């Protein structure tokens, strides 16, 4: 099998690695620019000049440290970790259309958060997050059980089942909140916003960051799992254990984001899909891309949320939802237009 097997003619004009490098540099630069911009955009005047003029004790410096830096860090952590949660879930389910909010995981975690509101109203945020994570884990488990009967190749059916599952759980949550007169506060914090992020109120997101590190360490295992149980077994992997680790990663990230920034839809779905188009699904290679692009996307959305109706803020979920839906549609159409 030698002479006849020349590569097909459709080789891209630029060799892939070169093209990838350029896109990678672009993402990195965007990330830096947006992060710095995020530090200096807001109602109060915080600019490099005002910080320097006011000195270390000035108002601007205080705002920077107490509010803007935490907010920017929080946004980056949320974007990066949500992308990773989506990526890992997609490998576990072997379906590109799943993420925490299309599998019922987010809804389960929300129910968990409501439970803490009802039974332990004074609970610290960390405890709240723990309960939400436990519910999220339960949700992941339920979802994985339910989709086991759906054929792997029924690509669209899997998220549909997940969305319905989430719908049922969300209905229960809404009903309980309604009866207990908690509907408004539930809606308020689930809408998604970084406006309330301040020093001392976002640090749990580092736990989500830690989960990203865990995902990176176990990256090859998730890649192999993504090839299916048969390949995984042949390569000597304990399928169930890897799936369990993945479930914990997804649930903890979902819960950490939920209790600090509310529901942020679509991000975990769109980002890994875009990255998949650029460099494929090898998890080790994809992780820095997914994290970087997730952070870029949500930094941009958060900036928009801040400036569109200044001095008011638009809920983040509105912006992310709109941007994400458009990107999602584009991905769907693109996928459909491919030959196979």
């Amino acid at each position, binding site marked *: *099998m*030698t002479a*006849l*097997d*020349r*590569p*097909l003619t*459709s080789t891209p004009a630029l060799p*892939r*690695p070169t093209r990838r490098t350029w896109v990678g540099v672009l993402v990195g630069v965007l990330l830096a620019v947006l992060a710095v911009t995020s530090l200096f955009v807001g109602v109060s005047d915080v600019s490099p000049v005002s910080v320097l003029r006011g000195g270390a004790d000035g108002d601007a410096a205080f705002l920077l440290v107490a509010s803007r830096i935490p907010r920017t860090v929080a946004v980056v952590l949320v974007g990066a970790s949500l992308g990773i949660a989506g990526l890992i879930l997609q*490998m576990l389910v*072997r*379906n*590109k259309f799943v993420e925490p909010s299309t599998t019922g995981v987010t809804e389960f975690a929300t129910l968990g958060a409501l439970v803490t509101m009802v039974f332990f109203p004074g609970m610290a945020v960390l405890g709240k997050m723990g309960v939400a994570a436990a519910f999220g884990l339960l949700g992941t488990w339920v979802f994985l059980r339910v989709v086991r009967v759906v054929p*792997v*190749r029924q690509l669209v059916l899997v998220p549909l089942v997940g969305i319905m599952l989430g719908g049922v759980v969300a209905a229960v949550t809404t009903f309980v909140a309604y009866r207990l007169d908690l509907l408004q506060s539930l809606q308020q914090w689930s809408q998604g916003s970084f406006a309330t992020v301040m020093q001392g109120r976002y640090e749990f997101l580092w736990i989500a960051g830690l989960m990203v590190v865990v995902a990176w360490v176990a*990256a*090859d*295992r998730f*890649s*192999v799992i*993504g*090839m*299916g*149980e*048969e*390949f995984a*077994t*042949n*390569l*000597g*992997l*304990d399928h169930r254990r890897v799936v369990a680790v993945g479930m914990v990663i997804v649930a903890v990230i979902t819960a950490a984001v939920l209790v600090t920034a509310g529901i942020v839809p679509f991000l975990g779905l769109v980002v890994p899909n875009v990255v*998949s188009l650029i460099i*494929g*699904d*090898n998890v*080790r290679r994809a992780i820095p891309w997914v994290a970087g692009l997730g952070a870029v996307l949500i930094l941009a959305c958060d900036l928009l949320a801040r400036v569109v109706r200044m001095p008011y803020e638009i809920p983040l979920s509105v912006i992310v939802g709109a941007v994400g839906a458009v990107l999602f549609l584009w991905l769907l159409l693109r996928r459909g237009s491919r030959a*196979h």
Partner: protein
Amino acid sequence: MIALENVTKRYGAQTVVDDVSIRFGQEGVTALIGPNGAGKTTLFSLVGRLVRPDAGRVTVGGLDITRTPSAELAKVLAVLRQDNHVAARLTVHDLVEFGRFPHSRGRLTVEDREHIERAIGYLDLGPFRHRFLDELSGGQRQRAFIAMVLAQDTKYVLLDEPLNNLDLRHMTEIMRLVRRMADELGKRVITVLHDVNFAATWSDRIVAMRDGAVVADAPAREIMRPEVLAAVYDTDVDVREIDGRPVALYYG
């Protein structure tokens, strides 16, 4: 040695593998033949620890597969299944690299890289190494999967219908490669084949299954007889001698 002792597997009321005792590993290349539904794939699944037997015992290289850690077995046994659908967008190189996982656990050594290069070279996948699997033809993809199994570098290699999707030339190339794996690298390859002429030409031993049982097990030449093939496939097969080799004629 791969040894099955009185292995039985049932699905509901149907006995798919029926009290089979057999050993593989003396010969370099063994062909497993038999009609659809004979239980060939299930036999491979039993050896490949994907399916638990209802009765009996399977050992690979002396290791009881139910008691040996899966990671240990992955260093001596590689199984390529019949229908492989990898939805993940992986390149040929990624795939072959994952074949090293049992040895590298994710950290590639110089030796791992040598195995990867050798496997890619053996299957002539150099020009395609950075292609995604969904950008390959069926035959190229099949070669990529075989390269992955080759990189796994196990003594025992089970290939379930590896000639699916391949044209005539590539079928021959794969069988030649299987031969080299046995003769040059000392591997023991057991492969499911549907074309008995390929089986007769390239293998040392042919095992025939039917209705969950082994109905014939002999050197290739002895299987290539009209009465044996007719009993296995339940259809008339003529066998002629061409250039000193038995050739089965079954085109109607």
